[in-house]
């Protein structure tokens, strides 16, 4: 029953998406208000069908309906209920369903929130989203249907990959997809603007909050993935420059550039064509990411459940969507930019934001080339290569140095023509403090942190003081703000505050990355119960080993105590689990998280007893001391909060209220644009 209903819901969703993709668009070109009016109802109905299909699949998992092949493959009777829900998106078919669900949520939210925008424009936006929905629902239905039967039903299912039986994997994919797929919204706005031939930049203001929210989700999604890899893969790394990570990082880089260039287009009307191009690229890279992850062309530590035969479909779809959008851009963009753009000087906020965009785009190109090169080399028969951290790390670092250096100047610079001497006056003490603190850190902790850690201190302090300077310039002196002067409060609007929060996050991230990378102590040792190891003044005592039964696994659990002198700092219990499908061993690391350092203990494998040893079984053990590890993710959390804060700025809502004026203008633009 469930399978049939789910199947019907998916087919209905496809038909409704077809309506959403065609009628409003054609109606907008022919001036048929009744056709355009179909946009919202069809979008809502399409989403409702997808929600139903998704809920049905989740129900099938929850009640263990092993007559569904997908459920039988990725769940079993002993799987705890919360992992049955996350198992819905634990493999290919379900994660595609999640993809279309998330797209439906975005589409409906947009349809709901922008009722006051001009009808022809919104009809086009929703149609473009409808086209994407059609592509992905058809893909799900015809190549990766999660509702296929497995008859006769199995008595018990396989198991969910143990790596995915984890809190991080319950929340990471939905967050990441909210970000990935959310870039479809600015993409749809851009394509709609191109179809319409809009010469103004008002559409950018309408799409800004959506872009910010999508970017915030992507930020937290990537951070969650990195956090998961850190504690679940059992070797303490948080970023591997792995192709699947790069696939989500590329849209983030371009999305970050987009968020900044939208600000220029919104406020000054400049960079119009460039903003359009970035909006197209951000979503194209999301599609490319989906292709890379879902097609199985990559070998990666994160690649689960991939199937090469499906890759071609996504590739063709990617070529059609991105190729179509870029062709449209090539035809229309020359008319969009031009004389109406206001000029700006060499030192101005525009030029600083241009530098931001170029550096981020270059960083994205660097990652893109490194990710795709092995694929191209293989396809053209140049041999089998892999590109690792040795390529990405240093060059990415090189691009980020000027970015970090220039960042504090951006918020201080005036539009059009900035006063270079004045900016330097505002920041000279910050620069001095940053260099002095970096030098001090190097002198005191040279052996522990090295030059990279010292640079991290300098960069972090420079960015943080830059935020303070940017705050003061808007708010006046701190005392006035405490007295909450009305002028200060007004000027510190949510958009600006969000920027300050996100840049603070950047400061934490830069300091965290460089300090943790430069100063982590990582020991892989042979240790038996009763033995201990000193790491950075902390004594890690391996007390004992015991046995633990979980719901669907059996575990060897180590008892470690960490002592600082005669004070016990932490008790840590790393596990080695054997899951009930009988073959897969999993490392559960024990982590004692702290604001300034993480302690990390993970079990390797049991080793042979040495001749004449005490008789206790020795283990290979990883013991890590990682300073400032949390700062990497706290920085990302702040960036996300910053983006979310900026999205609430009332300026965007006012733009919507004032839309009758815009509507009149859009209609007149309508008349001019060749249909």
């Amino acid at each position: 029953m469930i399978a049939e209903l789910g199947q019907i819901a998916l087919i209905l969703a496809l038909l409704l998406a077809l309506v959403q993709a065609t009628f409003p668009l054609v109606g907008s070109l022919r001036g048929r208000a009744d056709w355009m009016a179909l946009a919202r109802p069809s979008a809502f109905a399409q989403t409702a069908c997808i929600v139903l299909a998704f809920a049905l699949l989740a129900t099938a998992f929850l009640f263990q309906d092993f007559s569904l092949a997908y459920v039988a493959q990725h769940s079993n009777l002993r799987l705890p209920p919360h992992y049955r829900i996350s198992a819905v998106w634990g493999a290919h078919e379900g994660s595609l369903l999640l993809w279309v669900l998330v797209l439906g949520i975005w589409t409906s939210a947009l349809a709901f929130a922008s009722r006051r925008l001009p009808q022809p424009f919104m009809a086009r936006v929703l149609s473009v989203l409808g086209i994407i929905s059609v592509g992905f629902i058809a893909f799900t239905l015809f190549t990766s249907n999660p509702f296929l039967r497995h008859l006769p039903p199995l008595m018990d299912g396989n198991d969910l990959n143990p790596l995915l039986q984890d809190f991080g994997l319950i929340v990471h994919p939905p967050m990441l997809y909210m970000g990935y797929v959310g870039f479809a919204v600015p993409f749809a706005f851009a394509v709609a603007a191109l179809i319409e031939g809009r010469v103004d930049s008002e559409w950018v203001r309408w799409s800004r909050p959506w872009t910010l929210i999508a970017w915030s989700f992507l930020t937290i999604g990537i951070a969650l993935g990195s956090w998961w890899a850190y504690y679940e893969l059992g070797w303490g790394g948080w970023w591997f420059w792995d192709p699947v990570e790069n696939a989500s990082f590329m849209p983030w880089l371009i999305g970050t550039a987009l968020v900044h260039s939208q600000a220029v287009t919104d406020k000054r009307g400049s960079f119009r064509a460039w903003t359009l191009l970035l909006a197209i690229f951000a979503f194209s890279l999301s599609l490319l990411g989906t292709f890379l992850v879902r097609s199985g062309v990559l070998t990666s530590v994160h690649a689960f459940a991939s199937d090469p035969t499906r890759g071609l479909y996504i590739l063709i779809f990617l070529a059609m969507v991105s190729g179509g959008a870029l062709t449209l851009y090539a035809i229309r963009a020359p008319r969009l930019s031009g004389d109406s753009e206001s000029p700006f000087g060499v030192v101005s906020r525009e030029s600083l934001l241009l530098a931001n965009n170029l550096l981020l785009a270059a960083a994205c190109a660097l990652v893109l080339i490194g990710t795709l090169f092995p694929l191209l080399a293989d396809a053209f028969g140049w041999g089998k290569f892999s590109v690792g951290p040795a390529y990405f790390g240093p060059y990415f670092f090189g691009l980020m140095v000027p970015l970090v250096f220039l960042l504090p100047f951006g918020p201080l610079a005036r539009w059009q023509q900035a006063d270079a001497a004045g900016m330097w006056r505002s920041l000279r003490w910050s620069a001095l403090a940053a260099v002095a603190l970096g030098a001090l850190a190097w002198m005191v902790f040279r052996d522990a942190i090295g030059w990279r850690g010292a640079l991290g201190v300098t960069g972090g302090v420079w960015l943080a003081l830059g935020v303070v300077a940017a705050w003061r310039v808007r708010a006046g002196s701190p005392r006035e703000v405490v007295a909450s002067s009305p002028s200060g409060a007004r000027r510190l609007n949510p958009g600006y505050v969000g920027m300050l929060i996100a840049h603070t996050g950047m400061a934490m991230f830069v300091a965290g990355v460089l300090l943790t990378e430069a100063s982590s102590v990582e020991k892989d040792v042979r240790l038996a119960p009763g033995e201990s190891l000193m790491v950075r003044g902390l004594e890690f005592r391996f007390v004992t080993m015991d046995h633990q039964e979980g719901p669907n696994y059996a575990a060897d659990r180590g008892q470690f105590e960490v002592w600082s002198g005669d004070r016990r700092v932490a008790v840590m219990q790393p596990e080695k689990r054997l899951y009930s499908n009988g073959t897969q061993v999993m490392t559960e690391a024990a982590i004692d998280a702290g604001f300034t350092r993480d302690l990390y203990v993970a079990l390797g494998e049991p080793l042979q007893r040495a001749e004449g040893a005490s008789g206790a079984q020795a283990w290979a053990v990883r013991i890590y001391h990682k300073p400032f590890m949390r700062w990497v993710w706290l920085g990302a959390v702040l960036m996300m909060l910053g983006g979310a804060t900026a999205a609430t700025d009332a300026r965007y809502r006012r733009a919507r209220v004032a839309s009758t004026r815009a509507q009149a203008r859009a209609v007149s633009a309508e008349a001019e644009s060749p249909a």
Partner: protein
Amino acid sequence: MRAQRKRRLWMAGAIVLGVGSATALVMMALRENLEHFYSPTDIAEGRAPSARTLRLGGIVLEESLTRAPESLEVAFVVTDRFHELPVRFTGILPDLFREGQSVVATGKLEGQGLFVAEQVLAKHDENYMPAEVADAIERAKVKQSADAATSARPAPTGAVL
């Protein structure tokens, strides 16, 4: 319109400079940091350089894993079922490392016939074989049957398995 032309010139210059230097950097970076993938057969036939970091892929030969008693040093043999190569590694092997399963090791060749690994990777999925490894085994198989057709050379021990 002179100011605007000047600004356009600046922008074009910045873009050309940015793209140009990025391309140069990327090409340089790629040339230095590519890790070429080799199979035991490639190495046995002397096709792999000895000084560079490279990736070795194959299957861990059954019953070839040995451990040093007092350290984390391990030794095992990687095979593509036609040629074999001993590998030495000091550290903790991944959870899915098994004899008879595929593995990819990053490291350097030391002299003739010893691979010193800095990193050993096994896949998340126990039944999954990296495409490179599957491909290398396939190539070795094809080559072997071609060789067998032309000469009556006895097959190396690995082929029996």
